[in-house]
């Protein structure tokens, strides 16, 4: 779809707003609906949109394979390390109250990092699955 001028221009405009909306869903989850899962899917959808309009190689240049694969594991690591941090500071595993002198503030911090971990893993997995399927369709090698 590289030759459709309208699609290219519109996509360029919309993708910025999609990423913005993903961040809004991520960081506004304390007050409104949303969270890491939804934000991760929206962020992955914006990259997939880019890949559909501009072609898979262009998307691979923006978000390379090694980055996606690192994201898949890094999110789980981040989530688990938040739990370990709670243990090191003298609480139970995944105990957020000890992360800050004020327990409510500690909860905020814990939820923030945990949701960030969810976002990273979910968007990484979604992107990786799309890359693998789309790479098969266009017959190019998935190996970096």
């Amino acid at each position: 779809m590289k030759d459709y001028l309208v699609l290219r221009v519109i996509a360029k405009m919309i993708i910025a707003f999609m990423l913005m909306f993903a961040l809004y869903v991520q960081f506004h989850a304390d007050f409104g609906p949303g969270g890491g899962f939804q934000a991760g899917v929206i962020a992955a959808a914006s990259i997939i949109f880019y890949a559909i309009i501009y072609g898979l190689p262009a998307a691979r240049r923006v978000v390379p394979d090694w980055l996606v694969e690192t994201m898949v594991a890094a999110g789980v690591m981040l989530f688990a390390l938040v739990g370990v941090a709670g243990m090191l500071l003298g609480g139970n595993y995944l105990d957020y109250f000890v992360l800050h002198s004020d327990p409510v503030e500690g909860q905020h911090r814990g939820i923030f990092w945990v949701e960030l971990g969810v976002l990273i893993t979910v968007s990484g997995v979604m992107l990786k699955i799309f890359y693998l399927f789309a790479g098969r369709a266009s017959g190019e090698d998935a190996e970096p």
Partner: protein
Amino acid sequence: MATLAIIAQRNLFSVVILFGIYSFLMATVLVALDAVDVGMTEAAVGAGISLVLFLGVLHLTTGEEMKPLHRPLLPLAVALATGIMLVYGTLGLPAFSDPNAPPHRHVVPRYIHDGPRETGVPNVVTAVLASYRGFDTLGEVVVVFTGGVGVIALLRRGRRGKKEAG
């Protein structure tokens, strides 16, 4: 309606589009039930990502469904029996939005009354998911991770084997 159309259609492209419509309908139903978080997930995952993945798979295969080899009587019977059992199971559930139902009297009052004060998070769903049930959410993320790793392992190995053979 959408489900019946999905069963009747033989063109896989229209089936995929109908799946998307069905997901959006389910999302609106969930929003109408005040489950905004779940509705959002359904709209993003069900109607968004899985639709794109289905289309990608369609690109790899043909667009028309093959004629079935057997008569689908046994699967139909299994599906009907499961459906009837599930409907029979819902009869044992407490009535919808019954405040005296057992799940609403166990930990839910504590989440709703103490959650905003203890966590400082106004959205109860986020508080429960990330804080009270943090361990479960960790499990969920590990499930997503495992799924991703499985897909990577399967699809990559197939490609490498093909390269060696060819």
